[in-house]
């Protein structure tokens, strides 16, 4: 059975198994649990006390609580990943055996936070070596030990970037002469026009 929210693949067995666990909760409590899980996915922090209060009615053990949070996280993030609309998500979840009231509650929370979830997932996508800061300074060299009258401007550029493998910040300092800097600027402006054309 292919499901769109699983990316046109089979639904994992553990998700199927946990549907019965979710059905044990009342649909109102499950909607509130969805809200908490979405907050966790958006890195706003999950309130575990509230979660345990919500699940205490259905007498969930700690294993059940973990399982229900895991399955809700999977469904919501996977649906956002594959850009599934809430109607298809609702019909697919009902096919998996989730009762109708629970499904409507889940899909309502999903629809509300759909774009916020996608934004967050876009942010955490793989990016290597992010540029964190750029600092510059223009100097004017008057004279040096080699030549009495130098009279040349130079640009000192300090780039702070993230190392792709260790995720620590690395600083690079370069000094550029006026001509080289002009070339660099033209090339970067050409790249910028190309990027703007794409957007």
């Amino acid at each position, binding site marked *: 059975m292919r499901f769109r929210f699983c990316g046109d693949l089979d639904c994992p067995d553990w998700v199927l198994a946990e549907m019965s666990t979710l059905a044990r909760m009342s649909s109102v409590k499950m909607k509130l649990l969805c809200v908490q899980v979405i907050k966790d996915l958006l890195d706003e922090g999950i309130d575990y006390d509230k979660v345990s209060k919500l699940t205490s009615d259905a007498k969930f053990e700690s294993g059940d609580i973990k399982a229900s949070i895991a399955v809700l996280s999977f469904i919501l993030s996977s649906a956002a990943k594959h850009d599934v609309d809430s109607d298809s998500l609702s019909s697919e979840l009902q096919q998996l055996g989730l009762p109708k009231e629970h499904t409507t509650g889940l899909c309502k929370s999903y629809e509300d936070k759909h774009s916020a979830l996608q934004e967050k997932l876009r942010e955490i*996508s*793989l*990016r*290597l070596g992010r540029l964190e800061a750029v600092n510059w300074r223009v100097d004017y060299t008057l004279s040096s030990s080699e030549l009495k009258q130098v009279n040349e401007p130079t640009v000192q550029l300090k780039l702070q970037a993230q190392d*792709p*493998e*260790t*995720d620590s910040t690395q600083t690079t300092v370069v000094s550029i002469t006026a001509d080289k800097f002009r070339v660099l600027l033209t*090339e970067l402006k050409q790249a910028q026009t*190309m990027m703007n054309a*794409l957007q």
Partner: protein
Amino acid sequence: MIFIVIFCLSVVGESGRIAVQFLKKGSNPKIYEGAAQPSLKSCRLMLSDVVGKLNVWSGSVQHGLEGLMYLLTESCKLTISEEDFQDSVLVLGFSEELTELLLQLYLENRKEIRQILSKPAPSLPHYHSLEWRLDVQLSSRPLRHQLKPTVTLKLHLEDGARRSAHVLQTDPATLQHLIDELERALAELKSSHCRRILRNIK
């Protein structure tokens, strides 16, 4: 080890427990830092208690404990059966109840001690997670109007407590080749040769 013969029964039970504690805490060097210090201290307190009860030199108690630990680890390493354990211990000339107690200790803690012993074995860094990204190169400084797809992978590996990340880049054809090779490796498990070997191990 002959010294243990002089122990009274309750003390052997107590020191047997201490020996298992030492095995559990002492075998993992990381635990020595910080957290387990209180439990090691409590082990030492129990030791000094035993010393006080018996009115003997603490060094011989230490030797006795080490002897017990050695007995337990060797028997767990070889997973010897109950009868073999009893026979080997009888050779040392202990009383019936002592042998019985040692046997009980061995049987109860066998599984756990085996688990602890399996940890320090040399291991390779293993897979933790994989992030990927699909890009298309549209133009570069020398050449405009290109269309070059690349897949960037960040492989996260874990080796004990150390995490390392490796960044790799490939074009889709190589990626497909990689996938085919890995699927072929998985399919090897289903070949008759492998199945025969797995059947014999199980």
